[in-house]
């Protein structure tokens, strides 16, 4: 009891004082939905956070336009169909001052593969070899034209393995030894992280000296923080607060459509959705502009095809369901035998055109608008907003008709399509079996040049729009509030790139 009382009084008093110090500090303050639990970049649930804080880096990074640029590497080039050569920056160092050489990079990747299942999956079948102090080669078992995307993944952040060796407790600031423009100086799991500019960073030194990141899990509280000007950058704001935030003084609301496509996955085992024409009709009957405006509060844009949310493939905007065409949708349904009755509802052989649509997370409003749009088509949509676990369970049982989900579209695109369309793909919820997929993926991976590769990728996208295993709707909206005094913030389609950026500055 005495211990608790002592802790109670000292915590209140100490933190009351600490609050004042931080306010006087004048650094950048961030309010985020979640802070990680450890600082070990080999922990699957930590890596994206370290990236978001500007603490960790990979060999390469994905630019806002969807292309890959070297990051910790000076260059990263495909030198043979199955080989990429990585040359490290000269003189780059970890936060501790230890040099980042080829051996350190190899050891780091090995540790990530061994201790993080997701990193292990990315590195499976790859052989990393040290050529000299600054050069490595990464070899795959077959042609690997998209390996640069793999090496830019946040699960593969380069860290000083020696600093994490022999740890018996979760890594703290003393152990966190990475290479980013900021280093961790304080860490209170799931509560607060403090960062300081890294004097050893290879790039132009950031102008922001210190950063405080605080976890504010409640979305309404985060919106209130942004409105009250109590943080400089606030992420993942609720769509309900967007109108007020737009009008607020002293901040800019940045809405960057994410590089993932919110789509309605359709189960062909469901009687109403078995016919390809019905699935296509549903896709043509979606007024995507309206969905983006109403459900996405204008912070997102229509995605006519699955790949359209990937900025590296602007051609995908011209594929798929490029317009709202309820007449065509109606004709397709008529052809399929689902005709309107006197009550305006469609039915076939006495069976009404009806299906269940499950949404979860932030996709509830999208489901509501779609329900209304498909209702106008004569389809009865039974909408339910459920927990993700229930959505998964329904899928495992096969007891589902339609579900919203958003998969990333940025990265090794043929492999991402494979996951969506191949029989064993974890995103192929409807178990579609399309023989063309393997051949197109193979073509994309073995193409002689970029043009042929892009053509194969776009063919995969067209195939997706033809079969419609999922109706693409829009990229997930990402609403971030940035205070007017913050300069240099650049919106990015990857959520974790929308927090700490090296070019940030603090104005008056």
């Amino acid at each position, binding site marked *: 009891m005495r211990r608790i009382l002592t802790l109670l009084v000292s915590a209140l008093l100490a933190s009351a004082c600490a609050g004042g110090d931080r306010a006087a500090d004048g650094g950048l303050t961030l309010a985020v939905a979640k802070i990680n639990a450890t600082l070990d970049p080999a922990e699957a649930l930590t890596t994206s956070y370290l990236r978001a804080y500007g603490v960790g880096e990979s060999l390469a990074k994905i630019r806002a336009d969807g292309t890959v640029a070297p990051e910790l590497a000076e260059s990263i080039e495909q030198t043979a169909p199955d080989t990429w050569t990585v040359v490290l920056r000269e003189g780059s160092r970890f936060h501790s001052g230890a040099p980042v050489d080829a051996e350190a990079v190899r050891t780091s990747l090995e540790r990530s593969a061994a201790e993080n299942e997701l990193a292990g999956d990315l590195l499976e079948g790859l052989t990393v070899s040290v050529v000299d102090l600054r050069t490595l080669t990464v070899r795959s078992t077959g042609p690997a034209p998209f390996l640069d995307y793999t090496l830019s993944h946040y699960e593969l952040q380069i860290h000083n393995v020696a600093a994490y060796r022999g740890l018996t407790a979760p890594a703290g600031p003393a152990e966190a030894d990475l290479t980013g423009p900021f280093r961790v100086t304080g860490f209170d799991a799931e509560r607060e992280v403090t960062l300081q500019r890294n004097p050893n960073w290879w790039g132009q030194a950031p102008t922001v000296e210190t950063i405080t990141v*605080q976890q504010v*899990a409640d979305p309404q509280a985060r919106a209130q923080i942004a409105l009250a000007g109590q943080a400089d950058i606030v992420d993942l704001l609720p769509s309900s607060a967007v109108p007020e935030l737009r009008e607020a003084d002293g901040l800019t609301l940045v809405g960057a459509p994410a590089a993932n496509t919110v789509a309605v996955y359709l189960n062909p085992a469901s009687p109403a959705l078995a016919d390809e024409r019905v699935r296509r009709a549903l896709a043509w009957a979606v007024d995507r502009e309206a969905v983006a405006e109403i459900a996405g509060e204008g912070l997102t844009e229509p995605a006519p095809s699955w790949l359209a949310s990937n900025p590296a493939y602007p051609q995908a905007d011209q594929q798929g369901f490029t317009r709202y065409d309820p007449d065509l949708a109606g004709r397709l349904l008529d052809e399929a035998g689902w005709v309107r009755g006197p009550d305006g509802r469609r039915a076939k052989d006495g069976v009404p055109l009806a299906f269940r649509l499950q949404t979860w997370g932030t996709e509830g409003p999208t489901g509501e608008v779609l329900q209304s749009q498909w209702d106008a088509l004569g389809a009865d949509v039974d909408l339910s907003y459920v927990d993700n676990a229930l959505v998964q369970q329904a899928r495992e049982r096969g007891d589902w008709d339609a579900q919203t989900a958003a998969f990333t579209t940025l990265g090794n695109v043929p492999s991402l399509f494979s996951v969506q369309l191949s029989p064993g793909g974890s995103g192929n919820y409807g178990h579609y079996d399309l023989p063309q997929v393997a051949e197109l993926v193979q073509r994309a991976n073995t193409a002689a040049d970029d043009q042929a590769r892009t053509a194969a990728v776009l063919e995969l996208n067209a195939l997706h729009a033809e079969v419609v295993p999922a109706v693409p709707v829009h990229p997930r909206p990402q609403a971030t509030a940035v205070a007017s005094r913050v300069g240099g913030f650049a919106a990015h389609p990857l959520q974790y790139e929308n927090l700490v950026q090296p070019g940030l500055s603090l104005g008056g």
Partner: protein
Amino acid sequence: MRALLRSLAGTAGMLLVASAVVFAMVRSAPGDPVDVQLGESGGISLSREDEDRIRAERLVELGLDRSLPEQYALWLARMVGGDWGTSYRTGQPVLDEMLDRLPASVALGTAGFAVAVVLACGLALLAGRRPDGPVDQVVRLATLATVAVPSFLLGTLALQVATGTTGYRIAGPASLDRIWLPALVLGIAVTPTMSRVLRASLVAERGRLYAVAALARGASPGRTLLRHVLRPAVGPVLILGGLAFASLVTGSIITEAVFTWPGVGLFAVDAIAAQDYPVVQAYVVLATALVVLVNRGVDLAGRLVDPRQDARAEAVA
């Protein structure tokens, strides 16, 4: 001595039942922590075989591949031995995590309870002066209206008003400049029930012969209230207050989440979302233990305040 042993055995039994019920409920929820972890791995699209392999490995790692009775027995044995397990998310011992956050929750619960006591006493005294009079009616309406407002709405509204008018700092550690607002919200949420019970009790005690006699003998109304009415009237409120205090310390989950108050409630919310079983189970055991202990303490306090309870108990025996 025998009564004490009986009481301890009863408490242990209650904790055992609560732990078993919670264990069964938590594990019957759809999904598991590995689902949550794989769901958060955004950006990596796994093939079904890889996903199944990773899932199987993680389940073994977390000990979730064993049968449920086996898992429960292991957890119980460890808990009894003082090992509350390790959080799946933070990798830290659950007991340390709880002790780290408990002071903030105790502080908030105590402050909220103090607010409730002050408000409830004030309102009950006001309303109880003239039963069914205009003041009583207004207080009744106000308390009914307050009961109807959900605490998350009250919290969100309070947050909006306070940030605009006082510059209230929403995020940050548990500190004196942040505690007043959630304490006020918690206190207001508990006040209606406490004030109605106290008011009814006051009115009943005022009508008792000894109170009327005291007034007839020339005692002032204030002295009668303090010496003859308030003390016995507090009995029923003590029990209610005790339960309210326990629930304020461990049950203010929503208020802690709205105000980003770093207590055990907020920690439990995150744990529930991530299906962090050891934390959820420990939280419920802690909450149950607190309710049971406070209940026992209230029983004792009730007897001290109103010794007639003992006399009545003996008479019944």
